[in-house]
């Protein structure tokens, strides 16, 4: 049996009514593949994984896989996940969100989760648009682009999700694309094994909305766009700012050690004082 078939048999829910909701060619399926491969590689059991999501095309992901799955409200997945993890620290809690989910309606939960450093993995599929509701602009829609609510051109500046996560204090942030599938596997694996709050931003395409409105072609052409505009962190370090103007970096953007919330909370529980610097 092919390796991929084995993984499908092991992880997809067989009692779930297929077909899935995604458009043919959507990048979310590629992200799901990477997620499953990384979980399998890390050796987590299905019972210990809790896969939490918000609302959107991306938010529909958990229903198809055989873990403890929690499809929450729009933007609130990280807050639900916070409760799950704190109530049962033995669980491996992974959160998948869309760009609107994570940094528009859920932006406040996102920066606070990064700052708080609870042991959670946040995977954000960034397709620069609200896919599920039909192609309205999101906080990551670039300046000048067309969406169904910016049909002239988009006049706002976009969030850079990964840099936002770094600034908010997340100890691990990686960015990949659905074109660079192998990199995505390894970023997810590292994120899952990281102790603390880990973010993986997945640049993807919504060819049926964003692609169509901005004449970016088919799913394949949009993936080629990803290939041509992504620069590895290592390579980017050698390049001039001018050369990086229309490019984005992929790879590990930050990986540092910070006190992890539940370890610190355990000190409160056992009465030993915190070790941190208490100055404001």
């Amino acid at each position, binding site marked *: 049996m092919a390796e991929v078939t084995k993984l499908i048999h092991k992880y997809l*829910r067989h*009692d*779930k*009514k297929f077909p899935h909701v995604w458009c043919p060619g959507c990048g979310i399926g590629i992200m799901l593949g990477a997620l499953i491969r990384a979980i399998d590689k890390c050796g987590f059991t*299905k*019972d*210990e994984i*809790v896969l*939490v999501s918000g609302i959107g095309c991306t938010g529909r992901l*958990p*229903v198809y896989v*055989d*873990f*403890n*799955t*929690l*499809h*929450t*409200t729009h933007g*609130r997945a990280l*807050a*639900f*996940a*916070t*409760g*799950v*993890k*704190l*109530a*049962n620290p*033995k*669980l491996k809690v992974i959160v998948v969100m869309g760009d609107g989910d994570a940094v528009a309606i859920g932006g*406040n*939960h996102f920066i*606070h989760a990064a700052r708080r450093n609870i042991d959670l993995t946040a995977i954000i599929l960034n397709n620069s648009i609200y896919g599920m509701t039909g192609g309205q602009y999101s906080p990551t829609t670039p300046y000048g682009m067309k969406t169904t609510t910016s049909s002239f051109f988009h006049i706002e500046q976009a969030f850079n999700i990964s840099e936002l996560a770094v600034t908010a204090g997340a100890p691990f942030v990686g960015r990949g694309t659905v074109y660079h599938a192998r990199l995505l596997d390894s970023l997810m694996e590292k994120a899952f094994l990281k102790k603390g709050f880990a973010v993986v931003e997945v640049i993807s395409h919504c060819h049926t909305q964003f692609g169509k409105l901005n004449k970016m072609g088919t799913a394949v052409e949009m993936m080629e766009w990803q290939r041509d505009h992504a620069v590895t962190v290592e390579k980017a370090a050698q390049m001039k700012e001018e050369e990086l103007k229309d490019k984005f970096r992929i790879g590990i953007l930050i990986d540092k050690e910070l006190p992890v919330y539940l370890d610190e*909370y355990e000190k*409160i*529980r056992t009465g030993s004082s915190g070790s941190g610097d208490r100055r404001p």
Partner: protein
Amino acid sequence: MKREKKKNFRELLLQGNEAIVEGALRAGCRFFAGYPITPATEISEQLSTRLPKIGGTFIQMEDEIGSIAAVIGASLAGAKSMTATSGPGFSLMQENLGFAIMAEVPCVIVNAMRGGPSTGLPTSPSQSDVMQARWGTHGDHPIIALCPSTVRECYDITIKAFNLSEKFRNPVIILVDEVVAHMREKITFYDDEEIDIFNRVKPSMPPEWYIPYEDTPSGIPPMANFGEGYRYHVTGLTHDIRGFPTSRPDEIDPFIRRLFRKISQHFSEIQFGEFFETDDADISIIAYGCVARSAKRAAIDARARGVKVGVLKLNTLWPFMRTAVEKVLNTSKIVIVPEMNMGQISREVKRVNKGPTKIFTINKVDGTIITPEEILARIKEVG
């Protein structure tokens, strides 16, 4: 008293909010998430020091939306969970409150009511969130809301709230007004006090046989906690018995009806209150929260003057105590409903009144309590 000789009791002077904390801990609450707001803040502050000492967890979230989300998540992972807030925060919780109803996740939400709308009167009492508790979240849904009027009731009702939420897999709201939340009264805890604690019914079948949202005679399916081997899907989308989203009318209808049935089939377990001298009363007062205290005083004073007045105190506000209310409507000529709002429960009383009984209201919305004198004056006026 024999009990007192043995000294097997503790007497404490507690605030309503502190009694809620004691009740929550006694009921087995092990997770609390909240965001500071007057007049509920004491609950957060106390649980932040109490919970870690008993292996529980406290977290201050970034807002009330996150607080209730964390509470629901913790409950799914197996912890009895609670949050506490006041009007503005309660409004923010409404969407996820609906999620907990839809996904049938037990949790307790305390709303220490202050004057509204909006920021309103942060430090003044009110009873104006009664209807928000009933209909605040969107969609047709059942809800349980309880209301204490003494410090002792704050304790008992909090335990009851956890029990009901665990039993019926539905969020339970405690509507406490600012007066009761901040008032101090002596409360006695006996060591040999028998307190029933109910824990959610877990599945007894092997995981392959578990159907997470299956209908049962009680309407309440057993609940598996995350991580215990029963992997299933939880969603706010309307779902079939396996928890998977559905748009089939023949699956939607029985699901929504079951949500209602699991509460309506068990009214007698959920509804409670007190009939105070209503049997022979010509005039009955229907009241709840701090107003029920003034109502009792007024009834006693009225009887001293020869007017037969009784009080029906409601401890369950939702589901509405129709049977109890009908009983006083049938025996009294006049019913007075004093409330610190423009008429939220009186509207329900009028709705169930099918006979000739006259219903009068007292509506106070100036941020002060309704006094016994004010009720007595109304009795004189209408009696």
